[in-house]
């Protein structure tokens, strides 16, 4: 019981105290532990745990298929996808390279022609230069997924060098370089899925702003005004907006700010129209259409820059300090052992 109940609390408290005060202790190994090992240990434990998670996911999907629950057909895809990733990660490496030793200097051009059939060459001259500088030992700049393709290519170029070898990159490197089955999966399956999910947000952000950016009250209006100004001001089109549009927007923005306070539409529209004509009049009198004459406030770009330099930075800082305080207090509660999620 002690090992099950109290021991975890003791571990959490002692690790917490050790790391917190380890920052101050003038002893190199402790400093090193706090700076590096502590998080590395976590990463290692988390990596083990991933297999636990994967098994749980697999179990649920298999159960779904076995019990023929609703939409069970799709679960087969999840299982197959998982199996494929594991296959590419642990069993089939791909990543075959072709290496040439002692290339015949006269046949470099021929070699380049062969390479051009498997890969785009931007600048043949430069490639020639780089091959010439490493005639003794040259690796073809393309990595093959299938062994037979690599062998086939090696057969094509076998006459050009004393020795042509086909090998495959070591395990571990196959997850980092292009040309392995794993990287094929990464670029052709994983990337389109994840970046499209990400890009869906463009649509959701539009519908969310359409629905939520309403002049419901003063706070919501501030949200809306800041949002719109940033949206317009940060793209080139903001620069093109002439002064009279900006001044009109400012007038309308002012109107929007006071709208929640004035329920009578007539008075509100009256104020807006007066402001509108006053600003246009001023602009014509002082000839704001000339860039030099335009007051700085009538450029959306300047306004947006000011907003995100000052009021936004202030808001950010307040939230940042608040969050930091929350995290500190929670950490302290964990170290005291009065809050424990295990």
């Amino acid at each position: 019981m002690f090992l099950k109940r109290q021991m975890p609390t003791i571990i959490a408290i002692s690790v917490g105290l050790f790391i917190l005060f380890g920052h101050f202790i003038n002893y190199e190994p402790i400093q090193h532990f706090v700076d590096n090992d502590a998080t590395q240990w976590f990463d290692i434990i988390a990596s083990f745990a991933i297999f636990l998670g994967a098994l749980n996911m697999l179990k649920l999907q298999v159960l779904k298929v076995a019990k023929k629950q609703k939409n069970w057909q799709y679960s087969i895809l999840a299982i197959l996808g998982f199996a494929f990733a594991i296959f590419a990660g642990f069993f089939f490496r791909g990543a075959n390279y072709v290496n040439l030793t002692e290339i015949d200097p006269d046949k470099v051009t021929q070699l380049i022609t062969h390479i051009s059939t498997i890969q785009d060459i931007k600048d043949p001259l430069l490639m020639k230069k780089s091959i010439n500088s490493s005639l003794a030992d040259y690796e073809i700049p393309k990595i093959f997924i299938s062994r037979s393709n690599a062998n086939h290519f090696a057969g094509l170029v076998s006459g050009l060098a004393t020795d042509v070898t086909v090998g495959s990159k070591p395990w571990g490197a196959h997850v980092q370089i292009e040309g392995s089955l794993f990287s094929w999966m990464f670029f052709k399956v994983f990337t389109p899925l994840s970046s499209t999910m990400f890009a869906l947000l463009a649509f959701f952000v539009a519908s969310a702003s359409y629905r939520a950016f309403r002049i419901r009250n003063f706070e919501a209006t501030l949200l809306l005004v800041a949002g719109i100004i940033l949206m317009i001001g940060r793209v080139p089109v903001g620069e093109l907006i002439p002064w009279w549009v900006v001044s009109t927007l400012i007038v309308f923005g002012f109107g929007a700010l006071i709208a929640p306070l004035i329920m009578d539409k007539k008075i509100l529209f009256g104020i807006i129209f007066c402001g509108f004509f006053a600003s246009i009049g001023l602009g014509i009198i002082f000839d704001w259409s000339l860039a030099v004459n335009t007051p700085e406030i009538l450029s959306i770009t300047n306004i947006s820059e000011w907003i995100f330099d000052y009021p936004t930075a202030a808001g950010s800082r307040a939230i940042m300090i608040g969050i930091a305080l929350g995290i500190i207090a929670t950490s302290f509660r964990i170290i005291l052992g009065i809050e424990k999620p295990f």
Partner: protein
Amino acid sequence: MDILKKIFIALGSMDRRFIFLLVGFSVLLPKLYPDFFTLPIKASSHSERVFAEIDALENGAKVLVSFEYGPSTKPEIHPSAIALLNHLFSKDIKVYAVALWPDGNFMATEAFSAVAEKYGKQYGKDYVNLGYKPGGEAVVKGLASDIRTMYTVDLLGNELDEIIVMENVKNLLDFDFIFSLSAGYPGSKEWVQFACDPLGIPMSTGCTSIQVTDIIPYVENDQIKGILSGMPGAAEYEQLVRNTLSLRGIDVNPGKASINMAAQSMAHIVIVMLIILGNITYYLTRKSTKKGGVK
């Protein structure tokens, strides 16, 4: 007037799939017909700051570029990476790449292969790609004290001591500038907190738009020298680099971000229009909702 009101109210209750469709078209049309949509790009003070900082580096200086993004955020940051490499290589600056994100080294490889050839830069002599190391802030701290404790070999498996550019490079203090291309955690914040602040090395960042408001306090505090915010920031920097390099006799193709600014602007305008439309409808129907007493 009544008809107009009805139209607005009908528009206001439209299915959100129409909004999706409108946004989709606003992005697609400028992409398909780029000739109809051309816009001048004017740099903001933050982008200009970044450009000035990099441009002030001397020839032969050493710059560490950290790749902290992957394919899913590539559109926002990769253009900055390309423009940055153009700028650095044109000034014969040595470039060292590291990746704090696992897919960052794919991005680094792609960026180098797109730019290095043009300036006749050779791997190992003018630039090096150290690849990815897991650990986030621990990697940053490790690099600050000794690069060789974190990396024994580069991405291609060469020993660091065999690489020419790595000569006399022991830790971060040997770099003149750090540039973080960051899409989240670990990223710019970690570089500020664990490397640039304690060691006093200047740094700039090119980050995703969403991160800007989180990083802006550091920029205001001058802990980060300028910021390229998202694709528009990248476009501004591309433009600055392109203009300056053409004055120096180097032609650079217009970058991806600059080309896409038209689509970006269009989409923004459409969304703003939608918001305004939504508000007109809201204003017209406000009384009835008030009575209903919905939140």
